[in-house]
């Protein structure tokens, strides 16, 4: 077995992993629900901030005011999704690790988080950001995060 297989196998055989995969289906179902709720939270928060940045809603209210709650909601959603995702991964590590859609999803996730921290949030906090850059950042962010949703859906189908 390759080094990766060894690591995955030791995760899989751990007591913690058994707790997740061998226990009641309710555990996996709950993790999936938390995962979906986290995803929806972050997507809708992102959507609202994006609409405001594009001037398509609540134009009279300053961006910083509009973005205050959605930013917290966004990162809470990301946290819920990552924690539940990690637990599901630990429950069946090889199943996910060798799934092409899962690998793509993780790559997209890394890119999306980086973009959010390095570009989207600074632009949202800036006084008068260049509109072209704002539009680009919004487009990329939406593409990446919704792309993560699509890749996640594809996990069961590739």
């Amino acid at each position, binding site marked *: 077995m390759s080094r990766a297989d060894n690591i995955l196998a030791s995760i899989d055989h751990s007591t913690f992993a058994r707790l997740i995969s061998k226990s009641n*289906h309710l555990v996996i*179902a709950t993790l*999936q*629900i938390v995962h*979906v*709720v986290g*995803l*929806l*939270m972050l*997507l*809708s*928060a992102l*959507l*609202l901030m994006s*609409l405001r940045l594009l001037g398509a*809603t*609540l134009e*009279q*209210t300053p961006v910083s*005011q*509009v973005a205050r*709650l*959605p930013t917290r909601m966004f990162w809470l959603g990301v946290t819920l999704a990552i924690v539940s995702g990690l637990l599901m991964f630990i429950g069946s590590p090889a199943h996910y690790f060798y799934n092409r859609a899962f690998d793509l999803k993780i790559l997209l996730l890394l890119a999306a988080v980086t973009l959010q921290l390095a570009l989207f949030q600074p632009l949202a906090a800036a006084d008068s950001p260049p509109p072209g850059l704002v539009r680009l950042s919004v487009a990329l962010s939406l593409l990446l995060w*919704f792309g993560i*949703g*699509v890749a996640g*859906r*594809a996990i*069961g*189908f590739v």
Partner: protein
Amino acid sequence: MSTIADLAERLQDTGLGPVIAESRYLWPIIEGTHLLSLSVSAGLIILTDLRLIGAFLPRVPVTVVLRALRPYVLAGFTLTFLSGFVVFWSEAAVVIESPLWTLKLLLIALGGLNALYFELVIGKRPEVLANRTPLPRSVRYAGLASMTIWTLVIICGRLLAYVPR
């Protein structure tokens, strides 16, 4: 009740039903659209609910927030309902046998009625229109009810995925 089952059976077996159910790609695309569209419909409606309970943009009048988000919420719900109907079409006979389905439908109806009641009654109260603080308690209750109902709808929907087909 068996006539409903017969109708559902016929629906599932005709037109788009089998096309979706048997296609390798159409099913995940339609179902994925249904799920992701929830971020627009349920997500934005929950944000308006957060305004109603005073947790989001408390200094912006409720009427302003509602007016700003309503078109997107409605567009989102249109997409959610359309994609949801196609999903239902492909599995009608199987899914109506699950009590989760009945519960989901009831909750959607309840959510719709709650929204309608707010639009037609609570939202028309002079205190709300004038944005007098504190807002009437019914505003907060409507927001909490809406958040709860739509979250439960989503949970039912997720659990329905485990119904054997």
